[in-house]
């Protein structure tokens, strides 16, 4: 299945891109995608504890089961106000 990944804020600089597409086996959990991304972008691994992850418009944790076409966003802690 194909998952769209989008980076926000300084995560774009950490990864050198704003979005990409990742192929994963059907039924893969969000944690598998994150591990795949950390492998491609080692600087993301260093930010693991400061990474927020959303699928669509909702925050999700690692055990969330992804579906084909999901859009996953990774970003640092929010700073509104």
């Amino acid at each position, binding site marked *: 299945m194909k998952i769209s990944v*989008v980076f*926000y*804020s*300084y995560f774009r600089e950490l990864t050198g891109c704003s979005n990409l597409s990742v192929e994963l086996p059907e039924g893969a959990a969000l944690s598998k995608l994150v591990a795949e991304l950390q492998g491609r972008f080692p600087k993301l691994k260093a930010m693991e504890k400061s990474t*927020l992850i*959303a699928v669509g*418009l*909702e*925050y999700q944790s690692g055990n969330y089961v992804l579906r084909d076409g999901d859009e996953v*966003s990774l*970003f*640092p802690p*929010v*700073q*509104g*106000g």
Partner: protein
Amino acid sequence: MKSLSSRPCKADKTVMNRWLRIQAGPIDETALRQDRTISRDIGAVIYFLGVVRKQEGEAEISALDYEAFEKMAVHQFQKIFDEVERRWPIESVRLVHRIGTVSVNEPSLWVEVTAPHRGEAFQACQFLIDEMKKVVPIWKRPVH
């Protein structure tokens, strides 16, 4: 013990009015004040302005550059408004958050809450801003 039938009927809870803008242009406080409408039940109107400080950490800055994941930000704000509505008898919430470059001394955030009493208005406003800072995907970068 009172029977159910002898209890007065509780009026339906009034729906909280919501107004939200995430915008690149300046916040027009005068226009926002002029657009305010309140019912005769309202005893408290409070509003809060978040203003860009010159100091960001150790460094002096000239502005902050705000970025939002807008669609998710709107969704998360609406979820916070849902919770505000569930917890307090708020008549209306209006909120504006800037994106783009906001200079020192300019407001980046404007929040207004109207309610029958000040206690619930202050609590709701504080809650709304605290929650925003946890979940609404907006980020800022210093401009030197």
